[in-house]
Every structure is written in C-alpha cells, then in structure tokens.
C-alpha cells in the first residue's frame, strides 16, 4: 500500500527537489535560462507560463527525459544526475504527461504494468492497481484497450500508474486540458489528498483560476526565464496574467448592433462513419449557423470534432448532398475546392501539416487555399505577385511577425503562423467560416487578435463556426454554444445561459434534461 509518511507537521522544512540554475539550450535557443525552483513536501506548486515559456522542458529535465545544459538537481539536498526516467522513478518522482504516454492498442492493465519495474508479477500489479484505484476513487477497466477510452479515463490510467510507484513528488503537465469541468473537480480532490499524505505535487498549467484555487505556491516562467515565485492566492488572475505575458492582455470587444440573418451554414442529420479505425462515428449531427453569429462547439477532444470538421470542409464527403447546405445550396457531396467557391473557408486544427505545408513559403501556402476563388491563378498560371500581395495584406491586417517578406511556414512561431492561417481565410471575406481550435497553443496577445477578428467577421454578416476545447474562449466569442459528445451534437444553448456547469455536464455525456435535473439536485444539496 501507499505508506508515505505525512510531513505536514513540519512545513517548509527542507525542499524535496531543488532545481538549481537549470539551463537547457537547443542550438541558439535557450529553452530554460538559469531557472531555480524548490519543491516542498505537502505542497501543490504551480508552474505557470505561456506556451513556449519553458515549462515542459523544465519538467522533462526533472524527470530525467532530457539532460540540462547547465545547473543541477538536488534531491533532499543531495546532488543527483538523472540519466533516465527510471532513475527519477527510483528516487520517487512520478509524472503524468500532457500528451499521454499510453499505448493505444494495449489494454489498461498492460499499460499500467509497463510503467512499473519488471520485478513485480502481473498478478501483484493487478492487485495493487485495484486497491489504489479504490482508495483514490479512480476507477479503471483493466481489460479495455486504451483507444476506446476518453481523455479523462486515459488520465486516470496515467495517475494510477504514477501512484503505484508511491511517488514523493508527482508532476502533472496540463492535466485539465482533456477534462470536463466536473472531471477536473474530481482530479483536484485526488491532488488535495496526495498533498495531505505529505507528497509534493508540481502542477503545470496556464489556467489561472485553477491555480488560484488549488495551488499553495506558483512559479511563473516567461521566455525560458523565471519571473518569480509567489503565493497565487494573494494575486489576482489579472496580475498573474500580466506576469505570464509580460504586459497587458488585450480585451476582446463584442461587435455592436449585429443582426442575425438567415442561416448560411446548415447541417442536417449528418451521420458518417470514421475512416480511421480509432475515430468517432458522427450520429445525426444537426446545426444551423446564421449570418452574423458565432456558434461554438465545445467538447473534450476526440468526441467527433475532427470528423465533423472533415465533413464540413469537404475533406470527407457527406453521405447525401442535402446533409450540408452552404448559403442555401446543398453541398454534402462537393469537395473542398467547390465549397470554397461557394464562399466557405476552413481553418483546421493543426496549423503545421494540415493548415499549411511546413516547408513551403507563405505565398505558396496562401495559394493552396486561395487558388479557387481569389484570382491568384490566371489561365492556369500562378500570379506570383497576387500571392505575395495576399501575404502582405495578411501580414499587415493581422500583425504577423516574421523575419522576411515570404519565409517558410515552419519558421514562424505558433502564434504568428496561426494569425497567418486565420487571416488568410478571413481576408477572403468568406460567407461561412469553420475554424477548429483557433487559439490552441497561441500566446495571449495573438489569441486576442484572432478572437476579435472572428467576431468582426461575424459582424460583417458571415456565419462563423468555432470548434474549441477552451470554454473560456467560447464564452468570450460565441453567441450560441453546442456540445459534442460521442459523435452527437447537443442543441445549442444561448451563451448567456451556457454556464460552465451546464456545458461540463453535456461534455461528460449527460442529456440536457438530465443535466438540468442534476444541477437542480446539486443546488438543493448546496442549500
């Protein structure tokens, strides 16, 4: 069993793990620049920072996955060199990764066993697994293959696997990004319990409210450097955000005087089998997006959003012409180019590889989506100048920062490339825009620019459909929000009545009427 000795009696005694002046250099790029960090027993420590601030690099060093270029780690005041994760685990460091380190085609039990030393028998592991799962309230289905499981269930496997090693320090990398708000609450209960058992928890996040609620200490990184360590409960979300970003974050203003006109994008009972064996079936998805409004689709990833995007964009054809209607014309059987000619535009989730060809220049990438309807092709020949003009216009309107006029797509930072990809479509003034995860992995400044542009596009009469996992984002820009779960789409809720709680229940698969009921009961208990 887990027999960590509670050390809550002697707080702030001695750090369990200290990172002393850790640096990590990749070529010219300093991912970590002399970072100091002390982790204490019985403490939940937040590591805050934007994408690219160096959080993941730092924890990989702490877990022995990569070697620091400078500085050292001290475990209970003694210098240690971790040449691999197994050494970190032997010390008592456990880790739950953001992109899970699970094996999709293996069962839950096999996945758990793989995380443990080979000296223990399979039967003994099973017994301990059951016990841990029960004690911490993390139920698992050992015989199921991982690819059948949701993000929350996968995370449970990772946590149980880490706990079976009885770690003194547990590192969690962005653990709530795959969870519904309710699942996140359950996770927090587990983490509080680990803390009360005297374990140290390092919690990586960029969600400020979460950190304020859960964490005792927060260390903020920016651009590979440590900004400071503070008590997050004494800070406001705004002050933490300022420290993360290093300046004020622009606020998104709702467009005024928008009139919702006729529906411009209609999906009617769209059912579609996935082409990937691990994909999700779309089941009778229906939706109408009117000109002048932004509709959001929330949901934990892997519930059919990718399949829906592919069906809307025409990457996969719908079974019937009438299943998708763009501006009054049936388009279900048409391809991507034909749909673009009808005034639709699409921004997929992955900006490198799907949204752009990484090694092609921006002008060439502009041509890739603009060739059908933007006058960049004349009599079968590319009008090079027109493509460059398009790049220049996008650059100017969306503040895309780049080293030269027409660089390769891959050389841009995530935020700048995303501004380019979104801007490329918006400048064509589409009547219908479908965009997936518009600000995923984008710094706060760029995110604000993109969100404002989406709202403004709707303000000019376009129908905008945003697929996003980020509830805060949807609350900020969407007029109506629908939730995707297991390939089904709920009826959209007006943004005003779409509380986190309601959406969270829908994201977890509750049916709307039941969601309302459960909420009722909850309030009754609360009162």
């Amino acid at each position, binding site marked *: 069993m887990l027999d960590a000795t509670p050390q809550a009696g002697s707080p702030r005694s001695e750090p369990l793990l200290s990172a002393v002046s850790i640096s990590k250099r990749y070529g010219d790029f300093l991912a970590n620049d002399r970072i100091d960090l002390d982790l204490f027993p019985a403490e939940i420590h937040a590591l805050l920072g934007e994408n690219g601030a160096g959080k993941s690099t730092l924890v990989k060093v702490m877990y*022995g*996955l*990569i*070697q620091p270029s400078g500085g050292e780690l001290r475990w209970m005041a003694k210098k240690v060199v971790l040449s*691999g*994760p*197994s050494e970190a*685990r032997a010390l008592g460091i456990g880790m739950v*990764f953001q992109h*899970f*380190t*699970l*094996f*999709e*085609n*293996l069962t839950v039990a*096999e996945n758990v*066993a*793989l*995380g443990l030393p*080979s000296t223990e028998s*399979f039967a003994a592991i099973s017994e301990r697994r059951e016990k841990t799962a029960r004690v911490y309230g993390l139920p698992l289905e050992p015989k199921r293959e991982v690819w059948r499981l949701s993000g929350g269930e996968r995370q449970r496997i990772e946590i149980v696997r880490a706990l079976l090693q009885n770690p003194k320090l547990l590192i969690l990398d962005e653990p709530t990004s795959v969870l519904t708000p309710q699942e996140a609450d359950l996770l927090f209960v587990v983490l509080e319990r680990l803390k009360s058992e005297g374990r140290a928890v390092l919690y990586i996040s960029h969600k400020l409210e979460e950190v304020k609620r859960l964490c005792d200490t927060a260390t903020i990184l920016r651009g590979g450097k440590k900004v400071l360590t503070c008590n997050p409960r004494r800070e406001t979300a705004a002050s933490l955000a300022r420290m993360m970003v290093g300046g004020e974050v622009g606020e998104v203003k709702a467009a005024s005087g928008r009139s919702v006109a006729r529906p411009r994008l209609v999906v009617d009972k769209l059912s579609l*089998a996935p*082409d990937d*064996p*691990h994909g999700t079936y779309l089941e009778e998805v229906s939706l109408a997006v009117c000109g002048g409004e932004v509709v959001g689709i929330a949901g934990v990833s892997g519930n059919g959003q990718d399949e829906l995007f592919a069906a809307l964009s025409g990457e996969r054809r719908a079974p019937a012409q009438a299943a998708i209607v763009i501006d009054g014309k049936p388009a279900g059987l048409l391809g991507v180019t034909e749909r673009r000619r009808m005034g639709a535009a699409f921004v997929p989730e992955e900006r490198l590889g799907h949204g752009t060809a990484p090694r092609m220049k921006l002008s060439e990438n502009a041509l890739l989506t603009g060739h059908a309807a933007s006058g960049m092709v004349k009599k079968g020949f590319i009008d090079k100048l027109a493509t460059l003009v398009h790049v220049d216009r996008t650059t100017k309107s969306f503040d895309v920062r780049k080293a030269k006029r027409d660089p390769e797509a891959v050389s841009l930072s995530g935020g700048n490339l995303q501004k380019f990809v979104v801007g490329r479509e918006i400048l064509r003034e589409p009547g219908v825009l479908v965009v997936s995860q518009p600000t995923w992995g984008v710094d706060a400044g760029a995110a604000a620019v993109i969100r404002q542009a989406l709202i403004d596009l709707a303000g000019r009469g376009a129908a905008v459909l945003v697929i996003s996992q980020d509830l805060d984002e949807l609350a900020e820009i969407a007029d109506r929000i629908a939730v995707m779960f297991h390939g089904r789409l709920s009826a959209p809720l007006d943004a005003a009545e779409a509380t986190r709680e309601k959406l969270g229940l829908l994201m977890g698969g509750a049916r709307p009427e039941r969601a309302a009921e459960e909420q009722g009961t909850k309030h009754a208990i609360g009162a």
Partner: protein
Amino acid sequence: MPETLINIFHLIFSESFILTVVTASTPLLLASSGELVVERSGVLNLGVEGMMIVGAACGFAGAWTSGSILVGALFGVVAGAALSGVFGILTLGLAVNQVATGLALTIFGVGLSGLIGAKFVGERIVPASHLHLPVLTDIPGVGRILFGEDPFVYVSVALLIGIWLFLYRSRSGLVLRAVGDNHASAHALGYPVLRIRMLAVLFGGGCAGLAGAYLPLAYTPFFIPGMTSGRGWIALALVVFASWRPGRLVIGAYLFGAVSILGLALQPLQLGIPQQVMNMLPYLATVVVLVLISRTRGTAGSAAPASLGSVFVPDR
C-alpha cells in the same frame, strides 16, 4: 467436368500433395515469423528476400564444407542476422529511411549471394533427413505428415509457438509490442527503444537466414542463384495478411504454400490452363489478399503497430 473436380479433390487431399505443401510452406513460415516480430517492434524491414538468399548461399556453403546440415543451418542464421545487423545500424543507429534501406538490402543480398554461391553452383549435398519414429510414422495417411517431416518443419512450428508465448505471455513481449505501438511513450517510460528494436531486427534476420537455408538444405539439395524467387516478398505480405498475429500467420503460410504447389500438382491433369498462369498464382493470391484486407480494414480495425516504419530519434 465432374470427373476433373473429383481428380483435383483426390489430389489435394493426397498424402504426397500435403507433404509437398508443408515443405513449400516452411520457408514462408520461418521468414514471416521473424518479420512479424520485427514489425511488432515498429520496424519495417523490406530486406527479407535479400537476407533469405544470403542465408541460402551461406547455409549451403556451410553444409557443403562441413558435411553437416546443422552447421549449414547455423551459417544461414548467422548470415541473415549479420545482414540485418547492417540494416539495424543504418535505420536505428543512423535513422536512415527504413523502406529505402530494406530495398537496398534485398538488392545487395541478391548480389552477395551470387558471389558467395558462385563456386557451389552444380554441387550437391545430402539433404536433411526426415524424422522416422518406429510405429507413428507408419500410420497410413497421417503418419508421414505428422511424424515424418524434416527437422526444419518442427523448428518452424516450435518457433511460432515460442513467438506467440513471447508476445502475449511474457513481459518482454509486452514491452516489444509497446515499443511498436508508441515509441515516444516507451521512451518516456524509460524503455531502451533502439536496443529492443535492434534485437528484434537481428532475430528477424536470423529467421530469414534460416528460411533461406532451408531451401538448399532440405527443399532441393543444391544451390542456384536467385533460388528464393520472391519468397521473401510473399513472407512480407503474409505478415500483413496475418494482421500481425502469429495464429493467422500459420494459416496464411500454409495457404500460400498450397497455392504455390497447386500449379505444379495440377499439371498432370491437363486442365488446359497455361503453366505460366499457374506460376503466377501465389503472387496473384498475394495481391488479391492484400486488396481484400485493406477493404475490410475499415470495420475490423487496423492491427498494424502504430509506429511501424517511422524513424525514432530520442531527444536528449
């Protein structure tokens, strides 16, 4: 016409036909068993044909020089493993593209085997003797099929059972499957991805070498250049056919063995089908089966190891 069908029926279930099928299937089973392990670890080695033919040349050389079939077989195993070692160093150590390297390995192997085998062409050896158990082998009908085969046949069956036990009943097998499924995760958990893959590649090479050696040591008692005649490619297709499962591999190997013998066996019946068409049968069957598999893939779920063929470079 019905008479012809009855004749074919009699032929297919005759002892002599089944015995020939077993000998034709054994090299396919040996080579594809090894490749199955390699691909389960996430490596695609297209050099099976090359390793087989080098195994055949070295196996014959070993047996001819020493006069022992066992020594010959060991030569074949070592030669196949050595060649796959080159493949492993290139694709795992230096992260070279696996498809290109595998193809190059086959071309290289064909040339090398010609060089090694040149002075043995025209020589003969005494082929591997068949098992003979006093009473059992003499049971009419099944005796010779079950208890009168050459030792390679029993080795191939034992090997396959061993692979099944290893993959599904041992921890090391679980780790191997994990590495093939997601090498990044296996690395993050602290498993030595490249070392595990190297061992799998060497094992696969040894199996291919043994499969090649079977041809001059038991199938025909002499060596001719190019005597593997595409069996390595069929072995590769068999792994896909079996959807990376050892159980299905047996069925596939014996099915293909039967198809390849059928043309020869039907010759005396004078069916009026050109011999060239009959010779095409195993290859046509390969293509047809692969097409059928990819058509049913959508519903059955892909069994391919998820990192198959992708290069892994640990970030440090």
